[in-house]
């Protein structure tokens, strides 16, 4: 048993960094605080790699399976004797893998930002928030129990909120951040309810206990049925709702494209590589429960994933803002991962999808980060987000061009780049369990290749655009990360994930199945080809197509009007038809009754003044009648 207790510093360090930069940041020199943040992340990266190495290669296995190691754990808040929130560090294949992913990408982004954000005001603020995010994300993946995960889940949400709204004077940015927070918050409501139901049934939050395939949670956790589904299924569906929100799956995807309002490094880090895959991670984390005692929920995962990936891919083909294209591609790639999980089963060869999904998560982090950072470099150079205003940039930005190309090839799944391997595993998994989904993913693979190269060609080739000041290659602080990540894209494909990260921790034997791999490569090439024809040179084909399929194009271009739908619901229904009436009701009914009581009293007191008429004899009359009334009352009526 190796001592992992030092891992506490992995999340703690960024937190301290955040406090330092947040409280004293404005006193330090911006440069210095940037270096602080980056340095901190560097240390963490080192620590994570050490941890990964120790875990995978020196920690002993029990009958060939990696063990879940609770490095340390302390009770943070006691609810009941069974239910308590702990804070701690849980090490198992996926969390360790996530450590590597997060620290690497985050480190890259930090370095990149040193250049990218150089003359932005609020430089130190930016790094403070980045540290906050790193802290929350690391805390999330290392969570030992579902409630700790929820805590950091919320923190991740808020730090993404802050970072999206980094340019807080830009109304669009503010709107986007608000949207992102509220949408995910709504999803998290589902997560919380899920947790409540789950904990009520299983009387525990602890992951190890929950996900133990032979533990009580899974074996007799099913609980009573409610509306035809077992309570466990319900809870897992609710939990998944949280994942849907964070990972921008349909129908909670609307925040992701707008989130591109944030600085590009942020998009790379949060909205491509790390945070958005939290949903996938969540499902993977709870996977045994999904697989063994809530298969229906798992189906939901699969279909949601498949649909989102297709949906996003289609939209991506029509967008012109390069960051939005990347955003939709992110969504569709995550759809892949979800699908992969959805079609997987627990243990043995069933677990292929699980492994594939984690694998794809890993590779995707690399190439998507690379894409975003590349896009950042491009935007940095031309000061525009729209590919319609770009073209022929290959001579101005050679490094960016090459790395971007590598990334595009990777995502298109061209061997021997990493994307090919992971995607192939996913397709294989889909093929073995559900032919329809397999077909869908096949199409998506083609679409992906198409829109990525549409992007690539129209940026770096296409029409020769005149720039009012010639674009120039980004500084080294920005190009170096690009190169590193590009290398990552090339090599990571050869990491033996089937030996390291599997659903049950045991080694999973799998080899590339040619009759799936070859067609997938072909369809990728096909997509590239079409893109080449349409966008390599200036051509009228795209416009023609747009005109011929006018309505459908319009429909797709406007993202199927989902945003408008949401806007309608929130603005019109909630605001106009619930809260305003409530406010009105409160003023004019509840409050009015209170006032009415007072007014009635006043009124009565005014009406009865006549008794005090000042006429002695009237007084006397009332006196006599009073006496006689009392007499009658108590002699005859109420004796």
């Amino acid at each position, binding site marked *: 048993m190796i001592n992992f207790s030092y891992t506490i510093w992995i999340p703690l360090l960024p937190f301290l960094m955040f406090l330092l930069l947040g409280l004293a940041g404005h006193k330090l020199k911006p440069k210095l605080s940037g270096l602080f943040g980056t340095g901190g992340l560097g240390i963490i990266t080192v620590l994570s790699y050490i941890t990964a190495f120790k875990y995978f290669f020196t920690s002993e296995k029990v009958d060939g399976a990696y063990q879940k190691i609770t490095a340390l754990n302390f009770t943070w808040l006691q609810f009941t004797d069974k239910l308590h929130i702990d804070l701690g560090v849980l090490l198992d294949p996926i969390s360790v893998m996530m450590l590597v992913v997060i620290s690497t990408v985050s480190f890259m982004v930090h370095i990149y930002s040193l250049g990218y954000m150089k003359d932005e005001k609020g430089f130190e603020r930016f790094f403070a928030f980045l540290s906050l995010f790193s802290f929350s994300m690391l805390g999330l993946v290392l969570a030992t129990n579902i409630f700790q995960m929820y805590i950091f889940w919320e923190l991740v949400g808020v730090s993404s909120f802050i970072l999206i709204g980094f340019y807080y004077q830009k109304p669009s940015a503010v709107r986007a951040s608000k949207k992102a927070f509220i949408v995910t918050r709504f999803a998290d409501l589902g997560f919380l309810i899920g947790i409540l139901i789950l904990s009520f049934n299983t009387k525990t939050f602890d992951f190890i206990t929950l996900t133990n395939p032979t533990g009580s949670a899974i074996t007799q956790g099913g609980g009573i049925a409610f509306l035809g589904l077992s309570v466990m299924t319900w809870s897992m569906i609710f939990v998944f709702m949280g994942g849907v929100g964070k990972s921008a799956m349909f129908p909670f995807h609307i925040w992701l494209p707008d989130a591109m309002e944030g600085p590009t490094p942020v998009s790379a880090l949060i909205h491509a590589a790390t945070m958005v895959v939290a949903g996938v991670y969540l499902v993977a984390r709870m996977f045994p429960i999904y697989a063994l005692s809530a298969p229906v929920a798992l189906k939901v995962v699969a279909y949601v994933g498949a649909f989102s990936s297709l949906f996003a891919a289609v939209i991506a083909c029509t967008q012109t803002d390069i960051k939005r294209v990347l955003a939709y591609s992110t969504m569709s790639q995550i759809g892949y991962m979800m699908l992969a999980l959805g079609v997987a089963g627990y243990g043995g060869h069933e677990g292929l999808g699980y492994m594939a999904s984690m694998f794809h998560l890993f590779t995707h982090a690399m190439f998507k980060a690379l894409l975003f950072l590349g896009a950042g470099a491009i935007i940095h150079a031309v000061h525009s987000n729209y590919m319609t205003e770009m073209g022929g940039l290959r001579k101005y930005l050679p490094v960016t061009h090459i790395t971007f190309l590598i990334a595009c090839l990777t995502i298109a799944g061209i061997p021997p780049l990493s994307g090919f391997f992971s995607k192939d595993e996913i397709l294989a998994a889909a093929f073995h369990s559900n032919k329809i989904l397999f077909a869908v993913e096949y199409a998506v693979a083609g679409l992906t290749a198409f829109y990525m190269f549409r992007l690539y060609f129209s940026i770096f080739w296409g029409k020769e655009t005149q720039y009012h000041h010639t674009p120039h290659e980004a500084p080294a602080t920005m190009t170096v990360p690009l190169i590193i990540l590009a290398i990552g894209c090339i090599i990571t494909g050869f990491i033996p994930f089937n030996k390291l990260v599997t659903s049950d921790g045991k080694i999973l034997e799998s080899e590339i199945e040619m009759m799936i791999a070859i067609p997938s490569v072909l369809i990728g090439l096909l997509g590239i080809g079409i893109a080449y024809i349409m966008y390599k040179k200036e051509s009228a084909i795209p416009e023609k197509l747009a005109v011929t399929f006018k309505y459908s194009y319009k429909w797709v271009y406007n993202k199927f009007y989902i945003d408008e739908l949401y806007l309608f619901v929130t603005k019109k229904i909630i605001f106009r038809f619930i809260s305003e009436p409530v406010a009105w009701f409160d003023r004019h009914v509840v409050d009015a009754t209170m006032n009415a009581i007072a007014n009635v009293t006043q009124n009565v007191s005014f009406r009865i003044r006549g008794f005090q008429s000042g006429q002695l004899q009237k007084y*006397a009359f009332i006196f006599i009648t009073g006496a006689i009334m009392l007499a009658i009352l108590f002699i005859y009526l109420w004796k």
Partner: protein
Amino acid sequence: MNSGIPIQYFLILATIMFFAGVYGFLTRRNLITILMSVELILNSVNINFLAFNRYLYPHKLEGMFFSLFIIAVAASEAAVAIAIIINIYRRFTTINVEDVNELKF
């Protein structure tokens, strides 16, 4: 020693006087008359006392004495009342009770 008149007659007389007094108090407009009707009430009470004493409890004289005191007190009461009425007349130049209503509501 029974003088033949049954007690009921006295009581009926007293009651009539009482209500006559009350009626007078309520209807008469002249303060003096109102005062007189008060006296009427008091006297009806006296008759009650005397009758009860004479017929029911002849061996004690409480009723008798009580009515004597009532008469005395009524006299003093009347004295004060009339003094005030005179003052009223000075101030309002009338002793019509309806005009004496500056204080109301």
